[in-house]
């Protein structure tokens, strides 16, 4: 599959030097708890960023503010040149550009794999049934599930379900893909099939932000790794340095823990 099947048009094309994602001093509060405490992060177009950190560090919250699933309480967020504001319209615009894959797949249980992939293109872009089905098939092939297109999620393995979820996100032909711990809910033997698909996607030049603890994957794929703790970015750098020479005490402790 060629990388640039992205649809031209609808949304404003960002300036060449405009980052794909820009977070500036982003704050998210849960009551008095600061889930995000002034996060600054720019993701270049085409860049692959891996975010890691202990649970409760705010990494999931961070990725969920990018497409407005969590509303930020302070700071600014720009995605593909669109400023994310309280207006419903800006959120919808951004979501057309941003695909997301969840830890628990969240497939529509009442629809087949193919129908899962067809729903958003049909509703959002008004594609006809034929057109949407062709698009969906193309992306199911991309995740190697064309044979399972007619099956309902309950009949698919966890790994297969997650790949359908990836295909579903791809069907909106997003410029940015967000992954929120895509392999943490999987049985160990299924992790690699999902990571393999994500790696193949990474090679296509799409912008990616992935929350994961799969360090091997991070080394192979990430242009940059980000370590978060207590709602802040503690350390970031190229994948190799990040693992080989962690600078902060907290990252060293964290790596020691997950690598045991």
């Amino acid at each position: 599959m060629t990388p640039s099947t992205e649809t031209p048009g609808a949304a404003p094309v960002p300036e060449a030097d405009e980052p794909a994602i820009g977070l500036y001093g982003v704050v998210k509060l849960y009551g008095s708890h600061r889930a995000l405490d002034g996060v600054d992060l720019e993701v270049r177009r085409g860049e692959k960023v891996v975010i890691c950190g202990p649970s409760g560090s705010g990494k999931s919250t961070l990725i969920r503010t990018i497409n407005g699933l969590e509303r930020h309480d302070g700071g600014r967020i720009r995605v593909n040149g669109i400023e994310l504001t309280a207006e419903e319209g800006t959120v919808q615009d951004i979501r057309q550009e941003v695909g997301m894959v969840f830890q628990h797949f969240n497939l529509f249980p009442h629809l087949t794999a193919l129908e899962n992939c067809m729903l958003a293109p049909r509703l959002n872009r008004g594609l006809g049934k034929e057109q949407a089905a062709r698009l969906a098939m193309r992306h199911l092939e991309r995740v190697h599930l064309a044979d399972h297109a007619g099956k309902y999620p309950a009949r698919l393995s966890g790994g297969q379900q997650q790949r359908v979820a990836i295909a579903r996100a791809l069907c909106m032909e997003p410029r940015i893909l967000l992954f929120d711990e895509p392999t943490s809910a999987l049985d160990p033997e299924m992790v690699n099939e999902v990571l393999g698909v994500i790696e193949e996607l990474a090679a296509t030049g799409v912008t990616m932000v992935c929350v994961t603890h799969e360090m091997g994957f991070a080394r192979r794929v990430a242009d940059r790794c980000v370590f978060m703790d207590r709602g802040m970015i503690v350390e970031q750098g190229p994948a190799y340095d990040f693992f080989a020479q962690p600078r902060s005490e907290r990252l060293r402790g964290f790596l020691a823990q997950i690598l045991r």
Partner: protein
Amino acid sequence: MSGLPIDFDLAWRSLPELLAGLQVTVLITVLPLLFGLALAFPICFARMSARRWLSLPAELFVVFFRGAPLLILLYVVYYGFGQIALLREGPLWLLFGSPFGCAIVALTFNHAAYMTEVLRGSLLAVPGGIVEASEALGISRRHIFIWVKMPLAIRYGLKAYQNEVVSFVKGTAIVSVVTITDLTAVANGIFEQTYDPFTPILCAAALYWAFINLLRIGFELWGRWLGRHQREEASPLTAEAPRRFGLRRLSSLAKAML
């Protein structure tokens, strides 16, 4: 119960009359089921609203029309509404002036109140993650409701709906008190003419039983069709709200009937 004196000759002779009564019962079931369901949606949205001025009246509606005995609701509408001059003079009198209209109104409100709760429970049972995934795909709220929430809610709430419909049909037996000649009224009338205490009532009971089990079979088939995507039967609602639907669900637990 060896020798219940059922007079088969009488049963045969009164069959046309009983079937006519059954027709009325079906009519007085189907109309409120449709109107009540239609009414339940806006009331349910109001009930689930974060705005108190919307949710409070909806809640009061549910508490009253679900908590009051159906017979009293019927009396309120039939005897009570006639007192309200505004109603008596207005065009609504076409509705409230006839026993049939009153029965439809009382049954509709009662069913709407129950269905509001069924609907609410079913919508709350839709997993948040699935709704979130739809949002992340950029699907609009209206489309999420139509294409994701409702299809799932129907699956989760089907049993509760079935049980409400079944108990609703049984509830309609009271409309005879406002002179509507439904199945119960016909049976009563035959009793009063013949003083046979068994034949007419048992025949009517058999017809109710057949009607109700026909509905059950219909729901069963509908549920099977909807559940074709599931490997095993699992409704989040069973865990969610046993209190709300417990009794009504029982009758379906006892699928014994069939």
